[in-house]
């Protein structure tokens, strides 16, 4: 069974630029999560989808971050414009449904200069 795929693995941009991350969850998994992991901290949930609907985006900085999950499969997370403090690893995870075990992708390491 293929795992959670993410791309790109690494990205370096200048502040005020835009960036987008892509995630393909495990086939059949209804729930998809985006986490932000700042160096030295645990993952922080940004947004959670159940199929193509948003369940929780309370910690998503909506003035610059956006995410979508069209057709309830793949998802993209966008930052526009980026700030220095957005430098982090962005992890995507999926689970068969809400509350079940989460499977994580390898993450995208974003550096904002």
């Amino acid at each position, binding site marked *: 069974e293929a795992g959670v795929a993410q791309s790109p693995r690494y990205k370096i941009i200048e502040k005020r630029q835009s960036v987008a991350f892509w995630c393909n969850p495990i086939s059949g998994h209804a729930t998809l999560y985006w986490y932000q992991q700042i160096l030295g901290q*645990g993952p922080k949930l940004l947004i959670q989808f159940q199929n193509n609907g948003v369940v929780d985006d309370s910690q998503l900085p909506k003035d610059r971050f956006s995410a979508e999950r069209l057709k309830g499969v793949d998802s993209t997370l966008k930052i526009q414009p980026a700030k220095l403090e957005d430098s982090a690893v962005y992890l995507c*995870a999926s689970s068969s449904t809400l*509350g079940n*075990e989460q499977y994580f992708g390898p993450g995208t390491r974003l550096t904002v200069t």
Partner: protein
Amino acid sequence: AQSVTQLDSQVPVFEEAPVELRCNYSSSVSVYLFWYVQYPNQGLQLLLKYLSGSTLVKGINGFEAEFNKSQTSFHLRKPSVHISDTAEYFCAVLLRGGYQKVTFGTGTKLQVIP
């Protein structure tokens, strides 16, 4: 709201020695508990989980954890560590019932010394 505390940010231990990584949580309701491992430049991998039943939970790679409700703890243990266990370990909690998001601790870096 729930919270998770991992008091030790780094734990150095010699190869083949035992190790315990501490995790304490705070919650007003019953919880599910998890330990994840993160190797360098990789995502998180589930080591073990406590949902119900026996308070001693066995996971992958020889790790185990014990749920202690009275002390609100879920410490991770391994009797003999290997170099390959060098990684960062995260404790996480999920409230039982209804929708709740998983809350992660700040992580403990385990460094196994040859």
